[in-house]
């Protein structure tokens, strides 16, 4: 078996992984492992923008960004970490620009900014232009720019290596086990410091904006190695996925003046968020959409609504709202201007729906989008493994796989890109610093055995269960019972179903017996991860008897700060899930009712 050795090892090559690699490689021998070519990573699909209070087009302050993020998190975010992220944001954007990121520009040549849900002027309560953007392909440009800078800095990559296990020795990080897709061979990567940047797990739901690759590998591996998962019950449903397909339509559409319309032709968000309306935060809007549809006010009574960005609609509602341009003139748009700002989503609608958003409204429904929960870390990216935030030496996590927690119970749009920039960078810096003073841990002779056993079990199964059937049933169950609205009864049904699916998963049939690019075997292993995370999500959600942010329970409709202002920690021990809790860090902002 081939053994590689690097001071710092980054697992995952999306935004967080590449930021970590850029900063770690300045002072430490660093390598990046990724199951995809780096430019295939899911960061590339982010559209609307990255939040930072540059104040380029109107007054704004990092303190306002901090407060908005705390409020958006429904007070479950850790305020020290949020303040850190929002203060670092401004510098992070300038650094990206210096690396060459082609941001859209103001007439003066500065980085342009647009409004996004939940981001407000803290004095007036009105939306503020805080999202720095590059048309509607901001994530694509971030991913390209970071990868290009990695090429410039000669960062070492191992592309198409699937990480399958973490090696811990004496309670410290020692390395990872990975499968090389091209050969099917197991490799061991030994390292002093390991950074997990493996992304999210939105493939456990049926309607999802997430890539096939988003199978929660990092959290699943962490759980198998005794590391808890934090706040897994909080998963964001983005309001505007393309009907049935789940493909994301950026919130930037509403930032540019698009509105949600129900089957009666009403702009219903006025009833749910009178001040910011269609730019309320995502949990609020997704719930409002479900309520509208449940009351028969979907389009033709069906399970979708319209997102309308036709210029005449935008201008009609902008006039009603009294919306102004930064220079004080009334906000009036043309189709040409919208095409320039939202080219990709217009292309998606034409391709997948045959709908031209300049002349027709887009059919949309909420789509599973983002994991607020994940591997617990502190603001330096260090993985912390208990209620006292004890650090696991040498292990780091950043980006969607991590839970710092800056998003708490609900993430604001544009804060995911910001999270991966700021915490990717700091995880990289901390890991390199740690590696300077650390030594390699001795590797046990059987380091690859646990992973090998998982793969052997899949290959040696003599059953006839079908992988795709199991995946489909899991996704439907999670969508129905552990989605936007939840009840005890529904979640108990979901748990029973997941238990059944996990049992059936032990009897799957793998027809590909080969070594080279055995994607069937790898997909099966990924499905095992998804099943574990579906279970952890449901158990965490069932225990939390309140409604907060993205976790909305019909049977406990109110937020309960007396009993539940705390983070969930879930461990997987001998196949059983054990829950404990740790306090939320509150510095400046006492919890109060959340109104938009």
């Amino acid at each position: 078996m081939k053994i590689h050795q690097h001071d710092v090892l980054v697992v995952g090559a999306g935004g967080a992984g590449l930021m970590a690699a850029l900063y770690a490689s300045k002072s430490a021998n660093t390598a990046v492992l990724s199951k995809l070519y780096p430019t295939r990573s899911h960061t590339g699909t982010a559209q609307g923008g990255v939040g930072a209070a540059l104040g380029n087009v109107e007054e704004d302050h990092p303190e306002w960004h901090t407060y908005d993020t705390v409020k958006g998190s429904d007070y479950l975010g850790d305020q020290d970490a949020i303040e850190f992220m929002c203060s670092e944001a401004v510098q992070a954007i300038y650094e990206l620009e210096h690396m060459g990121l082609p941001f859209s520009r103001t007439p003066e040549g500065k980085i342009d900014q647009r409004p996004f849900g939940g981001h407000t002027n803290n004095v007036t309560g009105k939306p503020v232009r805080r999202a720095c953007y590059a048309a509607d392909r901001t994530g694509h440009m971030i991913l390209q720019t970071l990868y290009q800078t990695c090429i410039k800095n000669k960062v070492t990559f191992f592309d198409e290596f699937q990480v399958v296990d973490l090696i811990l020795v004496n309670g410290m990080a020692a390395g990872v086990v990975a499968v090389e897709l091209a050969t099917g061979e197991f490799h061991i990567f030994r390292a002093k410091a390991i950074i997990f940047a493996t992304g999210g797990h939105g493939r456990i739901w049926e309607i999802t904006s997430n890539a096939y690759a988003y199978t929660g590998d990092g959290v699943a591996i962490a759980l198998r190695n005794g590391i808890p998962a934090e706040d897994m019950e909080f998963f964001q449903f983005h309001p505007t996925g393309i009907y049935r397909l789940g493909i994301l339509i950026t919130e930037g559409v509403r930032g540019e003046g698009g509105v949600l319309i129900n089957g009666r032709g009403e702009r219903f968000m006025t009833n749910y968020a009178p001040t910011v309306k269609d730019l309320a935060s995502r949990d609020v809007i997704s719930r409002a959409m479900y309520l509208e549809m449940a009351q028969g006010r979907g389009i033709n009574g069906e399970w979708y609504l319209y997102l309308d960005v036709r210029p005449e609609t935008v201008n009609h509602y902008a006039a009603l709202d009294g919306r102004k341009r930064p220079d004080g003139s009334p906000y009036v748009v043309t189709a040409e201007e919208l095409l320039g700002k939202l080219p990709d989503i217009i292309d998606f609608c034409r391709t997948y729906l045959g709908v031209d958003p300049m002349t027709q409204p887009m059919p949309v429904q909420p789509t599973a989008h983002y994991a607020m929960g994940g591997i617990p870390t502190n603001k330096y990216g260090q993985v912390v493994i208990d209620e006292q935030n004890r650090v696991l030496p040498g292990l780091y996590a950043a980006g969607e796989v991590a839970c710092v927690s800056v998003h708490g119970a609900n993430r604001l749009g544009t804060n995911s890109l910001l999270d991966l920039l700021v915490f990717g960078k700091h995880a990289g810096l901390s890991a390199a610093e740690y590696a300077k003073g650390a030594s390699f841990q001795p590797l046990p002779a059987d380091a690859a055995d646990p992973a090998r056993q998982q793969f052997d079990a899949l290959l040696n199964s003599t059953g006839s269960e079908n992988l795709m059937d199991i995946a489909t049933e899991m996704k439907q169950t999670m969508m129905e019972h552990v989605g936007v609205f939840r009840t005890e009864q529904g979640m108990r049904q979901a748990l029973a179903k997941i238990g059944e699916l996990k049992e059936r998963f032990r009897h799957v049939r793998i027809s590909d017996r080969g070594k080279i690019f055995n994607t069937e075997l790898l997909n099966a292993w990924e499905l095992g991860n998804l099943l574990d995370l579906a279970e952890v999500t449901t158990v965490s959600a069932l225990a939390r008897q309140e409604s907060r942010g993205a976790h909305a329970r019909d049977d406990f409709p109110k937020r309960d700060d007396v009993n539940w202002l705390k983070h969930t920690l879930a461990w997987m021990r001998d196949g059983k899930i054990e829950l404990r809790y740790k306090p939320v860090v509150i510095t400046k902002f006492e919890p109060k009712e959340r109104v938009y």
Partner: protein
Amino acid sequence: MQVTLKIFRYNPEQDRKPRYQTYQVEAQPTDRVLDLLEYVKGHIDGTLSFRRSCAHGICGSDAMRINGRNRLACKVLVKDLQTNKITIEPLLGLRVIKDMIVDMEPFFEHYRSVKPYLINDDPPPQQERLQSPEQRARFDDTTKCILCAACTTSCPSFWANGQYVGPAAIVAAHRFIFDSRDQGAAERLKILNDQFGVFRCHTIFNCTEACPRDIQITQAIGEVKRAIATGRLD
């Protein structure tokens, strides 16, 4: 509707040479070709191998030949093909590893060879470097590239000689050459003036037709040729 898929198959661990396999599947006109491949893999033949990730035309994983044209399997719908017979084959000009999976390394090597990153040795300002909307628009089209390789592997010049850097690498170079913040145009133009550089392009336009992002590739290559010929970037 019933669709007949005729799919290129090659498994180096079993097959001495490539073959085609036919599958009958039930499809909706609005299904993506990728959905049909997923269905075959999930329910008929688990050994069928292909790359995919985002499934909506952004990650660039699933470029392949569909009825003879390079396309992203996730961005072409059954109804777009206007036939119920669909032939699916790997990209041309890159070594086939297994089924639709080709060796992407030579492609990325060409990409890296044109210095696809901002070159500017001046110390950066405290805030952003300024760039007017017009300067930004100058290279907007080539920022859209997702490195799917559909263009390069549709190019007869690349098929004839794999040492040709190919359209995608020239697009990457263009994105920086015409960026007002960049200072590396001269060194990139020198690389592209090489015998395996831009002048291998014979303006056949296959690349432009193949691009799933609608980048005007042939035009971009023309602009790079002109910059080499005139020494000017306008």
